[in-house]
């Protein structure tokens, strides 16, 4: 996690309306520092900012056919740092999309519905609970 204790979250979506609302939903949280990007390329270019979590749209190449799609961006993030949890967002509630995301090591997959914002907050909280548990476990393992 970042030294200033804030959880740095990257939000990546080419849908400006959804991106704005997502930012509004999470910005209220005092522990979050939010950075928003409209493309996968811009997200990748800023990975040196060390995000703790990335929320990434699956369908980034809808209108701009030359744009990096969500899965390509996910692969590049994982190649940069496999420990960054990436939560995939999609307006398609399809099992093959979910499976594809999981195969590419996404932490979770959320459908853009009315409950998506609540689900994302829960997932982010679970990520940090899980990370804390892992840290504690490693601490005990080192002493065994």
């Amino acid at each position: 996690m970042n030294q200033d204790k804030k959880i740095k979250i990257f939000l990546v979506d080419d849908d400006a309306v959804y991106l704005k609302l997502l930012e509004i939903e999470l910005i209220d949280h005092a522990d979050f520092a939010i950075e928003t990007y409209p493309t996968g390329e811009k997200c990748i270019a800023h990975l040196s900012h060390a995000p703790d979590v990335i929320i990434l749209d699956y369908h980034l190449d809808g209108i701009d056919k030359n744009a990096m799609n969500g899965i390509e961006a996910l692969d590049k993030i994982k190649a940069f740092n496999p420990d960054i949890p990436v939560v995939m967002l999609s307006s398609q509630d399809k099992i093959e999309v979910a499976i594809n995301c999981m195969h590419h090591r996404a932490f979770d997959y959320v459908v853009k519905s009315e409950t998506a914002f609540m689900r994302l907050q829960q997932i982010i909280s679970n990520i940090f609970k899980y990370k804390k548990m892992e840290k504690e476990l490693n601490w005990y393992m080192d002493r065994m």
Partner: protein
Amino acid sequence: MKYTDLGYLIQRTKNNSEMIMGVISAYLEQTPPLILAMKRGLQDKDWNTLHAAVHKMIPSFAIMGMSTDFENMAKKILEYARNQQQAEGLSELVAQLENVCTQACKELETEFNKFKETQS
């Protein structure tokens, strides 16, 4: 007939006018090029463009409080585009959705200006 309802947005932003204006402004900027892309996709039988444009419109419907009837209309267009079908009624559906989104933009522009006036 009213096409939009800001109730959901007001609730999510806790009635923060600056935030509401930010979302409306993003919608007003994003939607006209999507309408053009949708029409171009239909005209050129470019099903991928038609699909992509309509697909990108859908999440905004709920945010702007637009009826699920319009969302279903958009989903029907997606289905035709996915099957690469120039089915009868597709042009009519695209024209209807264009009208819905254009009317929504008009309403939201008025709402945006109201918020702006109350701020100044």
